[in-house]
């Protein structure tokens, strides 16, 4: 049996694409834009749809997501996976695809997501009806924001983190978005704008919350051996690790330390890397507090020091660490589940095709997906050819 560390670099991301970002209009389905992103990602790799033999998909907008998408695109996969861990699903799919490819169960995997939540309702769609009684909903939390607000409030209580620290994160995201032509929000944003914005669930204001947009993304994964013959610069998957401690926020053992501590440590160990080796960081910023928690939990700074790490433009363009270089869920796009877009941006950075926002000498990228309410945590380390 393969030791997981032996999988380091055995697969690579060979195609990426996005479709329908922002607002597609009321009659364009989530399935359509997921399909468009998939076809574009396959073409980006220089492959044909008939090359795809594994399909990974999760959606709150169409049932049996991987099976539905396969039918829609005329794919007949021999490996199908609808792992549903919320927004982290697509990062988890990278790991599951790597395992399937290593086991000979598949050779070329498509991972896709699409959502028209902005045009459809303007609100969040949940992943299917929940027929299990809730021990949270009757108390009136505004989910998911209240779950993250509870984490932020506790972080402030324990470590003295301030709303201004969180505002730094929103402002940094906006400054990155201003370098990306496809970002949904590119107008100027100041610390005072964030602090003065309408409060949603204390201590988080509307400017601490991600966007509600449409959008689809897709990536194609195959063996690194085959990737060397394809048209794009090599982006090997160095490691992926998953962890979770809770589903419902009220059952979490610790509101200020997430299971990213475990997924991050395992991912670094499997890749033989440390946080100081990472050139570009893409973490799931559904809310400003997420970025702070994940920078701490993944080891970029110590627990409780996130506020000073992000202060004074620390993660903005030109800061000490490039984080969420497309503008993130806060300013780039956020169609319900953001995980696929983390991967797409990391790949673009590692290929050196990120235009005005390109990070110089980007060889190692970290992608961190979050699902539920700080529930599912999945960390991936991606590289360029120099990391093999």
């Amino acid at each position, binding site marked *: 049996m393969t030791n997981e560390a032996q999988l380091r670099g055995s697969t690579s991301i060979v195609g990426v694409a996005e479709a329908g970002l922002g607002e597609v209009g009321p009659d364009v389905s989530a399935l359509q834009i997921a399909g468009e992103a998939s076809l574009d990602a396959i073409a980006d790799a220089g492959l044909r749809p008939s090359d795809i033999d594994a399909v990974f998909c999760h959606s709150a907008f169409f049932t049996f997501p991987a099976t539905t998408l396969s039918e829609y695109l005329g794919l007949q996969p021999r490996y199908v996976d609808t792992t549903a861990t919320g927004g982290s699903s697509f990062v988890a799919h990278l790991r599951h695809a790597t395992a399937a490819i290593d086991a000979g169960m598949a050779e070329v995997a498509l991972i896709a997501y699409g959502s028209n939540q902005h045009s459809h309702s303007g609100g969040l769609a949940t992943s299917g009806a929940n027929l299990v009684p809730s*021990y949270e909903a009757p*108390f009136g*939390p505004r989910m998911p924001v209240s779950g993250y*607000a509870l984490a932020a*409030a*506790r972080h402030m*209580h324990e470590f003295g983190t301030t709303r201004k620290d969180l505002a730094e994160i929103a402002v940094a995201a906006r400054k990155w978005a201003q370098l990306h032509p496809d970002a949904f929000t590119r107008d100027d944003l100041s610390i005072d704008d964030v602090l003065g914005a309408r409060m949603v*669930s204390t201590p988080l204001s509307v400017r601490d919350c991600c966007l509600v947009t449409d959008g689809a993304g897709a990536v194609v994964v195959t063996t690194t051996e085959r990737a060397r013959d394809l048209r794009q610069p090599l982006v090997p998957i160095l490691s992926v690790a998953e962890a979770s401690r809770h589903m*419902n926020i009220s059952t979490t053992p610790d509101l200020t330390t997430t299971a990213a501590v475990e997924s991050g440590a395992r991912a670094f160990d499997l890749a033989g890397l440390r946080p100081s080796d990472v050139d570009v960081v893409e973490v799931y910023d559904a809310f400003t507090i997420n970025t702070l928690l994940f920078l701490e939990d993944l080891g970029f700074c110590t627990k409780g020091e996130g506020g000073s790490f992000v202060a004074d433009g620390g993660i903005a363009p030109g800061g000490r660490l490039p984080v969420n270089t497309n503008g993130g869920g806060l300013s780039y796009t956020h169609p319900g589940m953001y995980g696929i877009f983390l991967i797409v941006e990391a790949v673009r950075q590692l290929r050196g095709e990120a235009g005005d926002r390109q990070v110089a000498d980007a060889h190692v990228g970290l992608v961190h997906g979050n699902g539920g309410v700080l529930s599912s945590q999945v960390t991936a380390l991606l590289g360029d050819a120099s990391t093999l």
Partner: protein
Amino acid sequence: MSLAQERSLDATYRRRLTEGVLAFQQCGGGHAVFPPRPVCPTCGSRELAWAESAGDATIYSATTISPRDQDPYTVVILDVAEGFRMMSRLDGPDATSATIGDDVRVEVRAIAGGGDLLPLAALSTGVDA
């Protein structure tokens, strides 16, 4: 009580609320288990017995929500003295005066405006003190 209620852990919990009791489970190893389930997530024991909380708790975290069309309220996560964590809510005069670390009392009543009986929080120094 019906047999169906006894079979359902969720229904047993709700029935105890109608009797004014916040019920939780305890395993033989002394772990408190909440929300109800068929196994202790700490030690794996399936020998669980129902117990009653005395209602003493501390606020672990809190977030205040101010809807446009109703009074503000605060959603809290409580550390209940018997050793479990749960979501609850402060409303009425206590709605916005609680902070993390405050001691509260858990009272089974309906949210202002009606609805099901719920284990709601009240500041220990508040109207019921």
